[in-house]
């Protein structure tokens, strides 16, 4: 337990510093992972096709969803946190409803390597990318009345001469879902309007490199791209969408690259305050972190040697990064520093030795010279113990209505930020034979286990501590191993 002084920096300020733990997936081999937007749960896709939902507060698996029979390669959560879309290696895509615990819809694209994305605000629109097809980007509207293959909406862009031969290699929605951004293999960025599904404009981001991943931040309006020329570029969304003219080469605001060893970065992510950028490597389990504002490199994170990360996520509001490597999920975070003031509020830590001037009556048992203690009367302010305004949640999105979550929970309209655990508990312990017996037969079971119960036979113990009189000055006659003698403290007033 590292103890530091009171003015230690805020827990969430700064990037993660070290490997904290591995999440126990109960035997699953993880391939991919995605946080929900509240940061309270992570969906883990596995090799066997199971989808495991991990509650992030407790780091325990709370739900297992059996949707696919092939390894899962892409997952996304809906805006309200109730739906999870996943795509498997054999081309099937399915959407699961977490509260109703059923598959909402499931269809197959018959081609592997899909990327699924939910529209950031519309829970009904699902977009699928598969670059090996004629029309790589396809959107589907869920909950359609026609229950056959969902209405597939194609995004046409081949009519534009500049990009007619491009292959779209990555997609992302803009922060509020107004546009769908698509990166191509010729370093073009195509912008589609997400409501009309029409092409809007396109830009050039560089000199003919494949855009592998587009990452969009919620704050500070950045768009970061990771490309095959081993350069990570940072752009301002506003300059892209509003200022630049169609077909232009858009200059990047910043670029990050490893000039020395030309590292090949596989996955990128940014922190929630858009201050730090992290990237995983192709060769080792090392995460490089840059400070975007200072354009400097921060201490890298190192995981176990030999693993190569297959996925990377930065927590929506905490300073924690998770990676998936060799089937295990690793959590990197900041070192927790315990301050002694957490244990004793009037404890003050000092940096240097201080000469203490003793006051006149400081160590007197009864200070005759001191004035009577003046206690300021406590103001009677009204206290609200019930409402939970959405405003105060760390994951609040800027265009979310000001809602009271307590009322919304009762009405059922709240987003699913806390997922109830569900597991089969009907298997009882095999150790205790008395477990499965109803109350009437308890006496027979007790006779059988008489020798085990001998340790419980004690003289004069109260049958239940709560209903017995537990006086603070405990009985002397009881066995000493049960109750420790009370410390000499102030006596209870009678």
């Amino acid at each position, binding site marked *: 337990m590292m103890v530091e002084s009171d003015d230690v920096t805020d827990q969430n300020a700064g990037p993660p510093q070290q490997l904290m733990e591995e999440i126990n997936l109960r035997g699953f081999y993880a391939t991919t992972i995605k946080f929900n937007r509240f940061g309270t749960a992570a969906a883990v896709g596995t090799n066997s096709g199971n989808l495991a939902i991990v509650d992030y507060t*407790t780091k325990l698996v709370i739900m297992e969803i059996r949707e696919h029979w092939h390894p899962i390669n892409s997952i996304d959560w809906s805006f309200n946190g109730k739906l999870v879309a996943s795509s498997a290696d054999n081309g099937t895509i399915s959407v699961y409803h977490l509260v109703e615990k059923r598959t909402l819809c499931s269809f197959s694209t018959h081609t592997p390597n899909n990327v699924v994305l939910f529209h950031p605000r519309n829970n009904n629109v699902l977009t699928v990318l598969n670059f090996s097809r004629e029309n790589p980007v396809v959107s589907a509207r869920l909950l359609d009345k026609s229950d056959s293959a969902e209405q597939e909406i194609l995004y046409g862009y081949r009519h534009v001469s500049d990009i007619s031969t491009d292959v779209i290699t990555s997609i992302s929605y803009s922060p509020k879902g107004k546009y769908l951004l698509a990166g191509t293999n010729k370093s073009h960025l195509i912008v589609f309007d997400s409501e009309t599904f029409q092409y809007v404009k396109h830009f050039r981001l560089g000199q003919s490199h494949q855009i592998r991943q587009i990452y969009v931040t919620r704050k500070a309006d950045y768009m970061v791209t990771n490309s095959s020329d081993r350069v990570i570029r940072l752009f301002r969304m506003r300059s892209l969408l509003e200022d630049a003219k169609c077909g232009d080469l858009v200059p990047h605001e910043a670029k990050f690259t490893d000039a020395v060893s030309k590292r090949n970065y596989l996955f990128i992510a940014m922190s929630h305050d858009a201050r730090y950028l992290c990237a995983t490597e192709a060769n080792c389990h090392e995460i490089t972190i840059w400070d975007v504002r200072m354009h400097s490199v921060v201490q890298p994170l190192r995981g176990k040697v030999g693993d190569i990360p297959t996925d990377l996520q930065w927590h929506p509001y905490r300073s924690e990064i998770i990676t998936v490597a060799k089937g295990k999920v690793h959590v990197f975070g900041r070192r927790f520093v315990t301050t002694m003031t957490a244990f004793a509020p009037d404890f003050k830590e000092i940096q240097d030795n201080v000469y203490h001037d003793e006051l006149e009556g400081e160590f007197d048992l009864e200070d005759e010279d001191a004035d009577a203690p003046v206690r300021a009367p*406590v103001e009677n302010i009204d206290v609200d113990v019930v409402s939970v305004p959405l405003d105060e949640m760390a994951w609040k999105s800027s265009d979310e209505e000001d809602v009271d979550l307590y009322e919304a929970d009762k009405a059922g309209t709240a987003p699913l930020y806390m997922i109830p655990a569900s597991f089969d508990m009907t298997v009882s312990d095999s150790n205790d034979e008395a477990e499965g017996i109803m109350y009437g037969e308890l006496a027979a079971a007790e006779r059988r286990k008489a020798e085990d119960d001998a340790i419980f036979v004690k003289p004069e113990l109260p049958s239940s501590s709560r209903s017995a009189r537990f006086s603070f000055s405990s009985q002397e006659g009881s066995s000493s191993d049960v109750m420790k003698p009370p410390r000499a403290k102030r006596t209870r007033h009678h």
Partner: protein
Amino acid sequence: METQQQQARPSESAHPVDSTFPPPNYQCRLTMSGHSKSISCLKFSPDGRILATGSADKTVRLWSPTDGKCEKTIGGHKLGISDLTWSNDNQFIGTCSDDKSLKIFDVVAGKCSKTFRGHSNYVFCCSFNPQGSLIASGSFDETVRVWDVRTGNCIKTLPAHADPVSAVGFNRDGTLICSSSYDGLVRIWDTANGQCIKTLVDEDNPPVSFVRFSPNGKYILSATLDSKLKLWDFTKGKCLKTYEGHKNEKYCIFANFSVTGGKWIVSGSEDKKIYIWNLQTREKVQVLEGHNDTVIATDCNPTQNMIASAGLEHDNLIKVWTSDT
């Protein structure tokens, strides 16, 4: 007839708090009995349809609060039960007992599903987290243990206090655990990493017999053995309100927030009565009589204006009270 005048004072919440709610008029509708030894705890299920009571006679009984029938009796512990807690899906009850173990009972099947062993002394209090994946328990061995419900393993042991732990509770989203103890401290712990975040101490530190979070997780209600109930803003570490008038010097009596109608604080007392205070003005709005011994446990129905109460040995009755406000 007391009228509560509210001055134009800036309220802490965004919504104007109405402190001119008419006082409650709880009346006893049902009286139930059945336990052979004294009752120690009593809790409504989250959907408000079942009332569960735990007793020193080692059993848990499930009652219907509408007609007062005892629906089930579940046994399994070897010594008396001190506390019980419901999971949010209304399917499981966690109990803790003097036999140093905790058990989870399946309500529908009426059988024990899991047993948690590890404490070295009486387990005094327990609480499910809102997700239903963890149970926190406090014991006379001065530690708070956090158990994984699915596997039965103890995932954390918090060196919480220097005296028996009298109560544990989770906040609304399960990220914090509060614990109180006879050493006079209330401590708040982070569930994810088990670190102590805050300690609440008042000037003199009488033993704290009960603690719980408010429904929105921002305030803490603590009961101390000098007959006081205090409402704390735990981020600032300040006591905001004090409720007095009852008698609580020996037993760990449960205290509740009643939020279904008017906002009240409800607590039993050692003078055989149940006290109800107005949460904002701290005045006693009603005192319920009818028990013949200390009222050790009270609980408020989450869905309607209903209070259930249970008395100790000489009384051993469970009473259900309803009100219009």
